């Protein structure tokens, strides 16, 4: 009886797994199809007729490479900026108690709840005044803002696990505060730094709204709005090309996921599961 229910549950699990993975399989299969087979009904499942032609087309498309480069710049900029800011702020929150410190933490965390779309209009007007529209800086600032609150919260949890006696010892040995932070404490929270960096990278790679509104020049477009605006016309999409672009656009995150899954999930989970 117990074995049978176990088996049924495993079958349910398998069905769910197939449902969740099928769209990914279909995307990759489409990306590998030559144009002649693309619109064939019933669909062509034969993997021997596949081709890499769509990938070579997309990778030799100048526009696509520009989008890719821009997304890379924004993603690394965001990751770097939010990592530094989060490391400094969360260290302070973890170690020093001053009046208003816990209130400030709450304020920081709650900024995450403000709807981006509601603030977007004001941000657009503000950046217009500051001449920041159509710059990488605008995108990096906006994406880092999305990543920062949770990063501080998660990293503070990592700092809290480091014993205070380390700093006291360093201070007695004549180590300055900044030196202590960078040479002794930060190396100990490397997993935390890695987790929040991955998180910031994901946020900026996933960004669509900021890339669409804060930037209007083709040379500065990032991947997500770029693919939507350049390859999705009204009719006659070249689906194989769009799917190939999608696969290539997802590749960096897939690689991060494959090699750093543990850190990626721990960063995401810690924000909620700590408490």
């Amino acid at each position, binding site marked *: 009886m117990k074995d049978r229910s176990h088996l049924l*549950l*495993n079958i*349910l*699990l398998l069905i769910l*797994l197939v449902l*969740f*993975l099928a*769209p*990914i399989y*279909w995307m990759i299969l*489409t990306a590998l199809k030559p144009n002649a087979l*693309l*619109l064939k009904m019933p669909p062509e499942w034969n993997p021997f007729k596949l081709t890499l032609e769509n990938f070579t087309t997309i990778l030799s498309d100048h526009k696509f490479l520009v989008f890719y480069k821009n997304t890379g710049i924004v993603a690394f900029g965001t990751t770097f900026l939010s990592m*530094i*800011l989060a490391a400094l*702020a969360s*260290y*302070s*929150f973890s*170690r*020093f*108690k001053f009046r208003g*410190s816990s209130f*400030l933490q709450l304020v*920081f965390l709650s900024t995450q*709840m*403000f*709807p981006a779309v*509601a*603030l*977007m*209009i*004001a941000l657009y*007007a503000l950046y217009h005044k500051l001449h920041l529209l159509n710059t990488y800086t605008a995108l990096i*600032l906006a994406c880092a*803002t999305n990543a920062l609150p949770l990063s*501080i919260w998660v990293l503070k949890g990592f700092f809290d696990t480091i014993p205070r006696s380390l*700093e*006291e010892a360093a*201070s007695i040995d004549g180590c300055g505060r900044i030196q202590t932070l960078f040479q002794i404490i930060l190396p100990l929270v490397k997993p935390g730094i890695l987790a929040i960096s991955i998180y910031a990278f994901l946020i900026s790679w*996933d960004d*669509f709204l900021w890339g*669409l*509104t804060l930037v209007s020049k083709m040379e500065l477009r990032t*991947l*997500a709005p770029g*693919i*939507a605006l350049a390859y999705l016309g009204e009719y006659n999409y070249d*689906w194989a090309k*769009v799917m190939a672009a*999608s696969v290539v*656009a997802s590749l960096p*995150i897939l690689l991060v*996921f494959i090699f750093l*899954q543990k850190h990626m*999930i721990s960063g*995401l*989970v810690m924000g*909620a599961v700590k*408490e």
Partner: protein
Amino acid sequence: MKSKLVIKFDLNSNKYFFGKLFYDKLFAIGLILPAALMLCLTIVLPLLEVIRMSFHNYSLLNMNQIKWNNFANYQLLFTDPELLFAFLRTFYYVVVTVSLNLVIGFTIALLLNREIKSRNFLRGLFFLPWTFPTLVAAVVWLWIYQPQYGIFNYLLQTCDLISRHVNWLGELNTAMPAVIVASVWKQTPLMMVMILAALQTVPRDLEEAAVIDGASSSQRFFNVTIPCIMGVLKTVILSSIITNFQMFALFFVMTGGGPVRATTTLAIYTYEAAFMQFNLGKGAAVGVLWLVFLVVFTVTYNRILSKKEAFQD
């Protein structure tokens, strides 16, 4: 425990003019300053600015000439029935999406929380859809739903479930559910991973004690498991509500708010006001209403749920 460190430092040095405590404070604030400055620039200032803009005549085409307009933006909004509809559509989308995320995510998490081989590998596979950018999710489902050559219509026809090509994203009744499917596909994995992590923190001995006391498995679930992970559930549900409330990319790419206005949610409505009707003032007014609603909602949500928790204790 936290404040002790500061005092200790204070004792061992007199060489500073203001005392070490003062410099500690200065250092602490100095560390926070860069993050605080950035959030001021990107959250606090826009927040004040969006309120100011909502009271002015503010056109995208002429951003240097702005005029106070006696609440005209708000009057415009309150006489536009479309605002209420946009709000209701958003509400419908959020409620259905978050519920499905929760139910399916919870189911998978429970299935993976049994004694099962290769749990981490399976968790990784289930997590995979979340790693694709939202735009890619939108584009993939756009292709799946494609009326003539889409695989969705093909499969349903092969199974004799439909008799004609359905334009899922182009018909009034099916557009919203079709977008919901895409968003559930993309978001459920994250919910699942969070709940699974929470389930694994439920103390084993509590569950065993419940078994010894003769609790049925449903009693065990509702009286042991759920209370243990309530804190996490509360957080993940709230963050899922907030994410979906402002969902923009899926709608923009998959339907653009159509057909007619069947999928014009608040996010799309705001974007249209500001960037397609060029009326930044109106867009800002929607933003302000939206912020007021979210603040009221979050406070109520926390009140209700913290009462419930107190009751369970």
